[in-house]
């Protein structure tokens, strides 16, 4: 059985990234490096409170980290947190390809 699921970790990462605005924020941070909430708000096209709310969800999934400097909070991406998701895609892809191999064998054995 090639299938391995790590529901606890993967669940939060998948759910956090299910929202397109959060995906865009995460990708922006991955590309541009550390950003303030202000800078992210200019790019995201939604209000600052909305961006802050999205950042909280991303933080809970450990997809971003923050640090305070004066009045500004700076956020940066933690790309390693994507690992459960990448693993999931790889494992399930392998799972289905393996099942298709077995299906092929079965079909050859079955009468027409």
């Amino acid at each position, binding site marked *: 059985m090639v299938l391995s699921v790590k*529901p606890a970790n993967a669940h939060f990462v*998948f759910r956090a990234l299910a*929202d*397109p605005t959060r995906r865009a924020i995460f990708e922006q941070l991955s*590309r541009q490096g550390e950003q303030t909430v202000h800078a992210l708000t200019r790019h995201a096209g939604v209000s600052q409170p909305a961006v802050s709310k999205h950042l909280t969800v991303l933080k809970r999934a450990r997809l971003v980290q923050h640090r305070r400097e004066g009045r500004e909070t700076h956020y940066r991406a933690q790309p390693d947190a994507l690992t459960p998701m990448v693993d999931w895609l790889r494992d*399930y*892809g392998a799972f289905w390809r393996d*099942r298709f191999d*077995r*299906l092929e064998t079965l079909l050859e054995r079955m009468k027409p």
Partner: protein
Amino acid sequence: MSTAANNPVEGSLTLVVERVFPHPPEKLWRALTESPLVAQWMMNNDFEAVPGHKFQFRADPMPNWNGIVDCEVLVVDPQKRLSYNWGVGNAESGMQWVVALTLTPADGGTRLRMEQSGFSPDQKGAHQGASYGWKRFFGGLEKLMGEME
């Protein structure tokens, strides 16, 4: 990561696996819907090709997984399309997916397309929703990861 794609369910994450089998659709359909045959290539199961039927796939338990997949039949369109829910883990941290198996005639046999999808956006009306799909997300990160190496 070429298997991640946008799918009919708007904005959801979808894994696609496709293959052409050199067999007619009738035969493939039997292998997809007759429980003893399904057990031979998928997992032990109490599947019935009846919409609304709840069933389980059961495999040997392993670390992080009790070996059980909770399912419910969604679509039965003989020799064309079969779809069921696919649930693993508990309510708080488990994952719910939809598996759709589509059969189409192909050169020398039948094409089987498996789409496993889930995690559609939880807010409607987000404008980027349509344009900022998972495919673009993974495309962007793939490029980024390539640059980091």
